[in-house]
């Protein structure tokens, strides 16, 4: 398999993949209709699905929200291309859940209502804090959405042959339109069920592929690694760190920066935080996280097998030939382990995996859109418009916001088409870790934290993170950049986390110590008591 863009597959299995995907769309639309039938139109219902999901349901939904196209397509692709360095993503994405479990999930469930800003605003002057936290939440969500859109685009490129730019663009637009429909009609209840269905499908697909890969090597993981190393052309270096991030010190710092962003970013992702509000108590929130850690951990172990399996069975050259960033390694692997492009087994398996990847993208996109529309309506709109609005109208605003965010994400998704999905998600994590995590941790644990500290913590993380990305080699100055022709690259690292996360914490501290405001003892006591006991939680 050589050449850059070719139709890998005869028409038959494209049709099958499209059929399966249409089936998923039909099922999710049915869910949406069913969910909106019971909808009462309250904010409680729209943002939190009535708060009565069970820990297991929510655990699956969290896993569904989290295991994005970036994990399924991106990480396996990175492992297939760069070996061990891709594995860092898997480790970081999983370890991050300890931060969520220990420091965030229960406390946020107890203190907040719908968004991150609720937790912070409970202690502070509401308006500036809401505007700041709302802005950063929307920024993170849009970045994350772009990654999903790029994933959808590259999948279609593989499926339809990639030569048709128009088909790729239309898919991105179609995915965007569908998600807006789900979110604005079904709210959190429909979104949650879509996540659950998707999580089950994704786990099933990953398990099936992993088993097939292991069967091919007679269950000998060692043999799998050896074959992958040989086939990669790098030998044993393929199984050790350094292939992608090993060169100069810039690359190494980039690796550390990424590692930090991954582990600290999850706890600041708005669509993950909003999931904790869909269960009735903090205890249920904790149990959902335990469920999701089990699911996510199992899934990432499988992505390792799939990544090395793709290197061993498909070969890095074929992976790179199909998509330079490696995003299509897993579908190609499915084609091979099913029996090859000419066989029925290969065709069917490829179609199934492609459809699951589509479903994954759709579901994650719906989850993020919902969370960001909540930020727009509940935080930004409610603060920027002083007139007291009824919950009903807030929900209408959220529906409109979902459309607006969809349009922005589609436009950016078309622009960023050629970047690796896992890498793009790394950026979203860096911004979340810099802008959202400091303010969240300070509000929950620091007695003297003030309004100014909160506002500075958000902007002090958000602005450096975004500016550093704009000045980084991702945007300009190298052939792989978004704008290869321009050169305004002044920051060497691709991932800003190493600099912007400490800056976020520093800014929050600085804002607090320089502010004249005396911290409100009673409000701090209220936050602390409520966060640990659940008193007064909605």
């Amino acid at each position: 398999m050589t050449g850059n863009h070719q139709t890998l597959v005869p028409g038959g299995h494209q049709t099958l993949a499209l059929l399966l995907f249409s089936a998923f769309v039909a099922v999710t639309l049915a869910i949406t209709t069913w969910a909106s039938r019971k909808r009462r139109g309250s904010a409680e219902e729209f943002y939190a699905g009535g708060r009565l999901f069970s820990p297991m349901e929510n655990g699956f939904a969290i896993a569904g929200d989290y295991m994005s196209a970036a994990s399924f397509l991106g990480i396996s692709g990175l492992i297939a291309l760069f070996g061990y360095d891709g594995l860092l993503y898997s480790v970081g994405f999983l370890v991050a859940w300890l931060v969520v479990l220990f420091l965030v999930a229960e406390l946020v469930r107890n203190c907040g209502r719908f968004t991150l800003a609720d937790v912070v605003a409970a202690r502070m002057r509401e308006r500036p804090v809401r505007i700041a936290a709302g802005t950063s939440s929307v920024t993170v969500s849009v970045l994350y959405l772009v990654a999903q859109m790029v994933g959808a685009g590259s999948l279609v490129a593989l499926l339809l042959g990639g030569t048709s730019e128009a088909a790729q663009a239309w898919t991105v637009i179609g995915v965007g339109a569908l998600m807006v429909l789900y979110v604005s009609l079904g709210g959190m209840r429909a979104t949650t069920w879509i996540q659950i269905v998707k999580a089950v499908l994704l786990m099933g697909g990953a398990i099936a592929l992993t088993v097939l890969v292991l069967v091919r090597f007679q269950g000998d993981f060692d043999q799998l690694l050896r074959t992958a190393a040989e086939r990669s052309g790098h030998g044993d270096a393929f199984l050790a760190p350094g292939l992608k991030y090993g060169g100069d010190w810039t690359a190494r710092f980039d690796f550390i920066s990424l590692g930090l962003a991954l582990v600290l970013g999850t706890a600041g992702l708005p669509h993950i935080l909003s999931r904790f509000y869909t269960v009735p108590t903090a205890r249920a929130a904790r149990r959902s996280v335990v469920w999701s850690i089990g699911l996510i951990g199992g899934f990432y172990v499988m992505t390792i097998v799939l990544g090395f399996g793709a290197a061993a069975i498909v070969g890095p050259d074929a992976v790179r030939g199909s998509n330079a960033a490696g995003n299509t390694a897993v579908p190609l692997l499915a084609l091979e382990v099913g029996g090859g492009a000419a066989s029925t087994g290969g065709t069917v398996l490829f179609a199934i995996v492609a459809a699951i990847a589509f479903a994954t993208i759709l579901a994650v996109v719906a989850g993020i859109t919902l969370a960001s529309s909540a930020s727009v309506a509940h935080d930004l709109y409610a603060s920027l418009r002083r007139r007291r609005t009824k919950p009903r109208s807030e929900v209408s605003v959220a529906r409109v916001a979902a459309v607006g965010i969809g349009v922005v994400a589609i436009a950016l998704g078309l622009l960023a088409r050629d970047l690796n999905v896992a890498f793009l998600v790394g950026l979203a994590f860096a911004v979340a870790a810099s802008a959202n995590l400091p303010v969240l941790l300070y509000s929950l644990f620091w007695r003297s934290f003030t309004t100014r500290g909160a506002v500075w913590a958000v902007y002090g993380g958000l602005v450096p993170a975004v500016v550093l990305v704009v000045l980084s080699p991702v945007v300009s100055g190298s052939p792989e950049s978004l704008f290869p022709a321009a050169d305004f690259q002044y920051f060497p690292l691709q991932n800003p986390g190493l600099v912007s996360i400490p800056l976020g914490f520093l800014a929050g501290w600085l804002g607090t110590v320089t502010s004249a405001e005396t911290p409100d003892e009673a409000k701090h006591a209220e936050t602390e008591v409520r966060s640990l006991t659940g008193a007064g939680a909605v």
Partner: protein
Amino acid sequence: MENHAGRDPAPVDAGARQVPFDDPWYDAFASGWGELDGTGAPAPLAPPARGEHEGRTARPADIYLEVQRSAAFQEVRGRYRRFVVPAVAIFFTWYVGYVVTATTAPGFMARPLAGSVNVAMIAGLGQFLTTFLFTWAYARHARLRRDRAALDLRWDTQELTRSVRGGER
């Protein structure tokens, strides 16, 4: 005190008293505490925060301060922090150590251990393993050492806020 709907600490509608915490998975506890006392309300085993200031008039804000200072709350907070602070320190150091070693000492990480499995692979799988272990330990600690006391406190605090609010109305 500004008080939008979500921060109202007490269920407001009359007759809601019997459901102070609507957790449908409440019965999953092993310890048998929190059973209904026959009047439809759970029987709190020890009412630690209550009684310290009965008969005193207090604003709702003061109640949280009082609860925060109560020995029962300090105990819950202490238990939470005594577990979480060392645990975060350990897993974060272990993770950062792993990432930094992978970057600065690839030669060490590439050292083969058994067949093609090297130090890096073992360290990576070790991260997975410790994550699962920490999750299990935290869930167990919270279930056995914190949940019960926290729920008692929640109940007491809500009772107190309700009585204060009731007095104001």
